[in-house]
């Protein structure tokens, strides 16, 4: 992260594609402004030398509150009823989720 790192409109488009978002031209402009403002604030982190610091992904790494043994036995157990789950779906035949065609040409 260099202090001068700035996001370009091409970056915004590339990231939007990665995030499965389709931004309007106006949204792109706002996003460009906001991401640059936020990343400028984030660049403060460069003041810290963290070369000898292990990344911390989870609180349990630090406090060790028994989460290490949280694995449950690998047993077959009932899951949510299919009818209840399918009732939430935008389009379904009752067994599968239906989606528009997957293979594009």
């Amino acid at each position, binding site marked *: 992260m260099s202090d001068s790192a700035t996001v370009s409109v091409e970056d915004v488009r590339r990231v939007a594609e990665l995030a499965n978002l*389709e931004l309007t031209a106006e949204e792109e402009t706002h996003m460009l402004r906001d991401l640059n403002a936020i990343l400028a604030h984030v660049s403060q982190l460069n003041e810290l030398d963290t070369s000898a610091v292990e990344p911390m992904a989870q609180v349990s790494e*630090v406090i060790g*509150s028994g989460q290490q043994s949280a694995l449950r036995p690998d047993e077959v157990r009932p899951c949510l009823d299919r009818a209840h789950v399918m009732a939430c779906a935008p389009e379904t035949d009752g067994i599968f989720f239906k989606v528009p065609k997957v293979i594009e040409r």
Partner: protein
Amino acid sequence: MTVEIAEYKPLSIGDIRSSLASGARSATALAEACFRQIEARDAEIHAYLSINRERALEHAARIDDLAAKGEPLPVLAGVPVGIKDVLTIEGLQATAGSRILEGYRAPYTATAVGKLETAGAIVLGKLNCDEFAMGSSNENSAFGPVHNPHALDRVPGGSSGGSAAAVAAGMAVATLGTDTGGSIRQPASFCGVVGILPTYGRVSRYGLIAFASSLDRIGPFTANVRDAATVLGVIAGHDPMDATSSPLPVPDYTADIDKGVAGLRLGVPSEYFAEGLDSEVRAAIERSIDQLRAAGALIKPISLPHTRYAIPTYYIIATAEASANLARFDGVRYGFRAKDADTLSAMYRRSRNFGFGPEVKRRIMLGTYALSAGYYDAYYKKAQQVRRLLTEDFLKAFTEVDAILTPTAPTPAFKLGEKVDDPVSMYLADIYTVTASLAGICGLSVPCGKSGAGLPIGLQILGKHFDEAMVLRVAQAVETLQS
């Protein structure tokens, strides 16, 4: 309608239980009184997104049956509660404040809500919040903002604004909210109620619509400290459905609550009293600290040197995790689907672009950027490293003090619209709360005074991992010293 407030608002959970047992009140009458209060106040406050009247009255009738038969009443018998709309209840809506989940009805119940209902609480409805709990003002709700009951032109705080406002306006005796970077404590401060951030892992998150999984927590809002302790005791504990929930036993959080602060070592970190702190907030916090000193606490100046790096660290970690969590909203299994797309990828993009609001998109974009090839080490890994430094600041401080005192927020409630166009300024509203979120420690906000304009001010009390009892004990002293 103010008569109705007087009828039940001063009631504590203990009062409710004993009055039900003696027959002085019924759970049904109590729920009805809350619904009347909601009718009277909520058109202008907008704390509730949905009301479940029939279901609530059915549950209240069951409590009244128990009481009539003279059977033992569970700990929250008849207590009217509201639930932030990011927690699921089977068969009821769970919008997360987003258009993408409008109309969605959950197929199962969140563990924390299930525990409340098993303990006899009556769920009145689901509460407004910032979309996917992303926000510090409640202005990011797709269904319109919540207004602060103390000043309708001001925000209630966020993201659990509805949960805080409902308690402040007597529209529930207790509510559940969630806190990822301050979303329980900051609205509690703005609305003049008690809000607890339990230790990471203390309360199961099964049934919580995830925002940032290494940070998200569920906690209660109440009008007083003892009630908060009671509700926390009900919802805390291990849950096989949440692998991050802790197996540590749950103590009785009310057992030591009245022990006072004599002899306790309370740390005051200089970094939380620097530039940017409103003078009236500072005065109220300092007055509280003086009262605690007079009550026998040993007030110790401490330093948490990495505090100023907490906001940038938080906004990288939280958004990175959010970008992954929110990938599940794709129009396939639940929620909104764009109708006009003829390919799968167009359907994903259009469903998400219509379904998500501006702040959610901003955070997904920031998080996706921080995780993308070439930037991961510079942003995400860097933030995780600083997270460890911030956590070590606290672990070191807690070898010298029993709890830490800070302002909850740098200012009282700000005006609606004041910060909506400036994301960085909005993010800075969380400056005193994100540190505890990153470190996984527990804390709460307790009212400690009001500004000249009558706006509530909250004192934040932070404690060691799983030391909620200590934080509650100090908070109880603060509350008692106020009155």
